[in-house]
């Protein structure tokens, strides 16, 4: 009977379970009411302090010119206006190629690279965490160590490698170097080690699943919070990627570059600069909300009862 339960019913059941477990959270024996109150108060105060700069950006983008020039800058706006946003289209004429081209580059680079970044990193992490191949301890040690080496001094050797591989002034210069991330492999490996039980992998193998299938269908669902978080980290970094010394063609440059072109026109354009900043903030925030919403909804299930 249970097997024939419709999908809608199943979903309903899941929701009920979730609600029940949520209620339980507050009723846990180990929590005192006074403690709960104090914590909530502290968190709200700290949280408000943290959003201050983001709030300031948004407020400033709605300030009229005379309020923009007030010093010290105010944390509120008296007569809000969307003038800064309305002047943006006229500033687009200063751009060398149409805005849509920059937008396409940014979206293409962020989405494609993030996908491969998470996939490649997770596959490597699975091998390092859950198999017995030779040399995995050494590789993992090198991955960890590479995190501690100062990135700035690597720029010149990297540039030589890019040019040796013919990557200069192509999309590859954005994509390839961003795919292998020591941080991502490290994060995924730690999660897989503690959250993917060996027994589960053995069971999958007995059922005839190959290594890749075990990784994709058993390991990955068990570390969903980890790869969702990695997706966010990767997207956030890639969205703000600027062509360094590796991209020269205007039609390959990204939105942050266009944004900085629009913004760099002195104090009178301060409002426009803030408006651009606010607009540029939206995609990472959306990705944040989507990924973290499902992170916080994943109920831990080890897969073994």
């Amino acid at each position, binding site marked *: 009977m249970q097997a024939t339960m419709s999908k809608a019913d199943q979903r309903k059941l899941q929701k009920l379970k979730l609600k029940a477990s*949520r209620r339980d*959270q507050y009723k*846990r024996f*180990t*929590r*005192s009411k006074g403690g709960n109150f104090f*914590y909530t108060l502290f*968190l709200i105060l*700290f*949280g408000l*302090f*943290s959003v*201050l*700069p*983001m709030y300031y950006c948004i407020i400033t983008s709605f300030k009229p010119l005379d309020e923009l020039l007030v010093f*010290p800058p105010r944390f509120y706006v008296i007569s809000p206006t969307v003038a800064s946003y309305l002047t943006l289209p006229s500033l687009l004429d200063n751009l060398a190629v149409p805005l849509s081209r920059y937008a396409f580059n940014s979206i293409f680079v962020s989405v494609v690279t993030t996908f491969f970044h998470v996939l*490649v*990193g997770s*596959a*490597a992490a699975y091998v390092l965490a859950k*198999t017995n*191949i030779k040399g995995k301890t050494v*590789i993992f040690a090198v991955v960890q160590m*590479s*995190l*501690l*080496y*100062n990135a*700035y*001094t690597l720029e010149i050797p*990297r540039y030589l*490698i890019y040019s040796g*591989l013919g990557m200069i002034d192509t999309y590859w210069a954005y994509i*390839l*170097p961003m795919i*292998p991330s*020591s941080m991502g*492999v*490290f*994060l995924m490996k*730690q*999660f897989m*080690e*503690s959250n993917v039980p060996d027994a589960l992998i053995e069971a999958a193998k007995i059922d005839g699943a190959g*290594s*890749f299938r075990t990784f994709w269908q058993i390991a990955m669902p068990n*570390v969903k*919070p*980890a790869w*969702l978080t990695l997706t966010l980290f990767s997207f956030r970094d890639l969205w703000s990627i600027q062509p360094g010394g590796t991209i020269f063609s205007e039609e390959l440059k990204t939105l942050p570059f266009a944004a900085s072109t629009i913004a760099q026109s002195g104090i009178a354009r301060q409002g426009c600069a803030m408006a651009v900043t606010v607009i540029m*903030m939206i995609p990472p*925030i959306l990705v944040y909300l989507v990924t*973290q*919403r499902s992170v*916080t*909804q*994943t*109920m*831990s299930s*080890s897969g073994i009862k």
Partner: protein
Amino acid sequence: MENAKTVTVLSKQQKRDRFLANLVHYLMLSPFFILFFAFTVLPVISSVVLSFFDFDAVSTPRWGFLDNYLRLFVQDDVFPKALSNTLVLAIVTGPLGFFVAFMLAWMVNEFGPSVRTLLSFMFYAPALAGNVYFIWQILFSGDAYGYINSTLLSWGLIVEPIQWLKNPSYALPIICIVQLWMSMGVTFLSNISGLQNVNPELYEAGAIDGVKNRWHELWYITIPSMKSIMMFGVVMQIQSAFSISVVPIALCGYPSINNSADTIVSLITDVGTSRYEMGYAAAISVVLFILMFATKSLLGKLVNMAGR
């Protein structure tokens, strides 16, 4: 005889299976490994090699063996100051940042999914908003109109505005505060996800077994189940605490007054960017790496001891 034969045949089959399985494992590792080797391992190796050369980024590197290192420890008078600043910043913001990121994640985890998402969004907002430390420039502005100065003046606590970012005795503490406030990034979110993955049955079992309050639960259940994620946090924290440079350069400039806010990484950036001494910059990076690696090894042992 018959039996022995089947055994050897079987083990051959097994060997082949194992070989095939390992082949797949190597194939799964290879995309990462190849790219990682090309874009990280090779550059690190060449940078270490470069640290023994005199290289100005244009002409052919000249072999100098330990010249760069000798110069760093004997001649450079910014280095000792930068080293001590870096150590102070690392010792204050490293553990404290880790602690704050862990405790906040732990507190946020008490709430239902929606409140949790909202609160963690607020804490993560500085990381999402990008270069946000400018807000501190407004707050700590050195004239009488800066928010902190004008508040202190109106309360009568000071008689004339303080040059917060230009004063050697305030610069470092202010950078500590800003850096701590910005530390709610990678470590915080990885802790949030790590807490999601702690098996709730452990908490139930703990409550039955006599865990009395949240602190007990934290020490005996949460921390032991989070060890590997905490180790990740430790390494990321070491990386960011020893690499502080963007905030001091933005707030206090480089070089700052009396080098009061210069760090090793801001020294590296200066040596490389404005003096083009790439071999020397590489040597400083190697020293910094050794420092960070020693710290990591030490802390790794500490994490393993927690919750025992």
